């Protein structure tokens, strides 16, 4: 019995030391890793807010719809969202920019291969302006007729974006 306790204690000490070492290394490397993540996305983020200063936000979405959260100039929020529209082989990836009080200011599609003349119309400048810009909640977002799948996917993303905004604001 005594021996078992001794063995457990030894293993416990080894594990505790390794935990401490990992904690220290993580403390040193985490800011650098976050910086790199911003750098990798920088070009896309600049599309939304040119010459702004970006910071990564700590937000994890359990549904896997929001895949990135950033803050620009300490005032605006940018969320990267993904969902499958009509074309199941290429999921839609969009960046959505929100201002301080959670109104959509900007939306850019990074990846989408929706059908031209149908789903792809959702990403036309005019439709983005009518459907998504200046909206404050998911209830205000309308669907685009003839583009049900794409609109639904985008609405799902927007719903998660508003949820994420509430969580990090």
């Amino acid at each position, binding site marked *: 019995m005594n021996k078992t306790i001794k063995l457990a204690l030894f293993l416990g000490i080894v*594990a505790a030391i390794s935990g401490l070492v*990992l904690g220290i290394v993580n403390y040193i*490397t985490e800011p650098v890793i976050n910086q790199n993540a911003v750098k990798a996305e920088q070009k896309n983020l600049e599309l939304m807010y040119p010459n702004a200063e970006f910071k990564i936000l700590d937000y994890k979405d359990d549904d896997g719809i929001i895949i990135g959260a950033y803050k620009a100039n300490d005032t605006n929020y940018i969320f990267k969202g993904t969902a499958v529209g009509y074309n199941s082989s290429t999921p839609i990836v969009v960046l959505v920019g929100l201002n301080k009080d959670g109104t959509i200011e900007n939306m850019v599609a990074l990846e989408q291969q929706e059908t031209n003349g149908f789903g792809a119309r959702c990403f036309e400048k005019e439709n983005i302006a009518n459907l998504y810009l200046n909206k404050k909640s998911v209830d205000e977002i309308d669907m685009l007729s003839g583009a049900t799948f794409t609109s639904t996917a985008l609405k799902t993303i927007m719903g998660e974006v508003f949820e994420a905004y509430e969580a990090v604001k």
Partner: protein
Amino acid sequence: MKNFKNGFIKENPVFCLYLGMCSTLALSTNLNNALGMGLCVTIVLIFSNLIISLIRNITPDEIRIPVYIVVIATLVSVVELLVHAYIPALFDALGAFLSLIVVNCIILGRAEAFAKKNPPLASIIDGLGMGLGYTFAIVILSVIREFLSTAWVSFYNPFDMSQLIIRIGMPQLENYTISLFSSSVGAFLTFAVVAALFALINQKAKEGKK
């Protein structure tokens, strides 16, 4: 010194002991990945050998394997975090294989076969020799495979992948490349041929001694 040299030809971990083959086969597609992986494995191997050798007298025999695994897993996580932070391009290229160094049997094998009964300095040298032996093996495979599948062997600056450092090749062979060698089948073929060559060298050496 003898331990150090052993790692290359006579006891090359990959070609003669057939250890750690999974990552060798998977990551020998190009020179950059091969060198990066070799370096990571060497670093982990040196430090794990050192630490295990330092605690060899106080480690109870019954739980030595879990202790080794904790030590190795910690070192691999440290290397992984550092690579992720400072060489992101390499981190993306190595992917899951970086964390899989934990289960690379060269490392646990050397801990069990060497570091647990030898003093720290000898263990470091053994780790260095075995690590370089692994690097040597994976680099040989990668050079052969990269050349056969693209007619070129290139080395990029790992900190900035757009910066080419060396590029050697035969442009006249560009139309005759065998893309099979960039896939896993090519890895197995290359490995078999090189391992056979090593076996031949070792056999000759043995006969010479007699």
